[in-house]
């Protein structure tokens, strides 16, 4: 028979969830509501006057082919960042997990890049790949490859993906490493006795057992690539060349804080909110079904 503790009255439960609720309302619901409200206006930067335009901001945005193109750019960018940060992290975690000695040192070293702020990481990578003085582009030049991310959109995309994924590998590593450590040794030993080699054991036993972690990281990384990467893009490419790296969140930033166009910027954040909301729903509805807790 199921045992349940049921609160008497409402006061205590409300008090218990209140801190979380208040924080959500102040830092999430209130600004989101403001953004929705502001997206209906074209205000001047100083807040002296504003014109009600209804859905005019949305019409303006969706009628702009560069804005529509940035959806595709964002999709490509976030898929690449998510893969480039999760796959190497998993690989490194598997390697560190196999170590018997000094795995502590390795894992500590691997976590370090996470401490580097995105904008700083951006500057580091920008210098390494600087088309004229960068050390990596110099070596590429020696190999006969002419690296020029200021004019080549594909290379620019590659560079911002690497710079964004780099610090995230550490974060993902940490979670994968912990998940791998919690896989019961008895299961692995039993299958080893049954004659399963390493990769067989990995795919049939380990991987299914760490899917909850992998799923969590998938959601978190997608959200990261949507929202937190604008520092990297701002420092390396500023969205260029020819908008090849202008992802949605960068456009929110540059229209709002460079162009002082708060109406368009608010409308874009509303659109972004809807997109990320839909993505999260899809992830939970379809991918989570394959996750075994």
């Amino acid at each position, binding site marked *: 028979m199921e045992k349940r503790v049921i609160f008497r009255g409402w006061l205590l439960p409300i008090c218990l969830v209140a801190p979380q609720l208040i924080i959500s309302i102040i830092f999430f619901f209130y600004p989101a509501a403001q953004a929705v409200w502001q997206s209906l206006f074209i*205000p001047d930067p100083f807040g002296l006057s504003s014109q009600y335009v209804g859905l005019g901001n949305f019409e303006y945005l969706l009628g702009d082919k560069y804005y529509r193109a940035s959806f595709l750019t964002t999709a490509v960018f976030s898929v690449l960042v998510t893969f480039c940060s999760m796959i190497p992290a998993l690989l490194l975690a598997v390697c560190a997990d196999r170590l018997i000695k000094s795995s502590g040192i390795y894992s500590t070293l691997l976590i370090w890049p996470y401490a580097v702020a995105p904008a700083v990481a951006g500057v580091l990578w920008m210098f390494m790949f600087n088309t004229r003085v960068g050390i990596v582009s110099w070596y590429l030049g020696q190999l006969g490859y002419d690296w020029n991310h200021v004019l080549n959109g594909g290379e620019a995309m590659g560079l911002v993906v690497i710079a964004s994924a780099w610090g995230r590998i550490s974060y993902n590593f940490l979670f994968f490493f912990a998940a791998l450590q919690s896989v019961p040794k008895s299961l692995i030993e039993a299958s080893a006795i049954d004659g399963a080699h390493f990769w067989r054991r990995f795919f049939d036993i380990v991987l299914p057992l760490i899917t909850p972690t992998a799923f969590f990281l998938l959601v978190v990384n997608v959200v990261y690539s949507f929202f937190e990467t604008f520092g990297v893009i701002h420092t390396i490419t500023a969205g*260029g060349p020819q908008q090849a790296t202008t992802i949605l969140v960068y456009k929110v930033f540059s229209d709002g804080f460079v162009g002082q*166009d708060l109406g368009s910027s608010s409308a874009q954040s509303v659109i972004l909110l809807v997109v990320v909301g839909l993505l999260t729903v899809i992830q939970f509805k379809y991918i989570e079904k394959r996750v075994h807790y």
Partner: protein
Amino acid sequence: MNKNILGVLAASTCLSPLMAMAQTEVHFWHAFTGRLGELVAAQVDEFNASQNDYKVVQTHKGNYSETLNAGIAAFRAKEQPHILMVFEVGTATMMAAKGAIKPVYEVMAESGATFDPDAYIGSVKGYYTSTDGEMLSLPFNSSTPVLWVNRDAMSAAGVNPDTDMSTWEQVGDVLDQLKAGGEDCPLVTAWQSWIHLENFSAYHNVPFASKDNGFAGLDTELMLNGPAQVAHLSAMGNWAKDGKFIYTGRRNEGGANFRSGECALFTESSAGYAGISREAEFDFEVRPLPYWKAVASEPQNTIIGGASLWVMQGHESDEYKGVGEFLSFLSTSDVQAAWHQNTGYLPITAEAGEATRASGFYEKNPGTDIAVIQMTAKQPTANSKGLRLGSFDQIRGIIDEELEAIWSGDKSAQEAMDSAKERGDKLLRRFESANK
């Protein structure tokens, strides 16, 4: 001993607010760090030491865009400073915000401080005056593009470093010779839109935008896809294709290449002087910006880049008196001459320029007067007074993108500029409706 020191410290901490109370504080937000930041602080200290009624408090608020944003956010929170430094592309934004700013001519008239609008150099002042000639903000740091020449690199490639490079036709020949002589980086530029479109248009007396480049109204449209601009950008695009013009980025990234001696020619602001004179280990020279003989028989004036000081609304009248005194102090000949000589920025008054000449500075530092001459040789026309376009920071971003398409060979100059006009005009229309 220790107790005494503590006592003195405690006493001074208690007293200092009292002493500050006696003076009216004037807050000044600017965007300068490093050497420029020190020079601004020195100006402020000198002003504070020169009188007892007012105390200017200077604060660094980040780069140009960040300083403007900080000012806007502060105004919304009713915490705005008295004086805000705004870069030239933010001019239209400030000008349109009539309830947020107090025009400089008004501040000066009310404060009774010495102010002679005619003392300022026309082409500097013109950028910041209304169409009826009233000064709206005080020009602070202004520079204009010039051609920097690495004479050693010219010689190394077998080109006579004294070759005349007044016109782009001549520069084109020099680039051919440099390339043939084995130079890997014949030409780089900084601030491509500012130099090769905005200044290019003014210098050849062709419009950059309709309505007198936006001075005459918000219903302006870009005209940067005219035949003169397209011809110049096509030539640049061909040079880029042949490896004679090397593109390094949207800002002044090319400066590093020029200062290291890697490149022969460099189009950059006259304010590049401080950095180049400090770092260059080669024989360098400043030349006037070239012009196309085929487009104009002789060049008009170039326009400025840099920043001006805006006075914000919402303060007490005795504070505005202090603002007036400070702005008047900044415009004095000595302060301006020192600023011009230390930074390479243009002097904002004709008197400061003459004082600099009289002191023999230009003979000791040849080429430092080229920018002044280039700016002042001719009376500015409607096409060369400056630019006043809303959302201009973003429009520059669009122009940068389209220029990159030319350099990479993705688009012809005409296609790229047509597209820049179409995209930029959309932003201008939005700015117009936001500021109706």
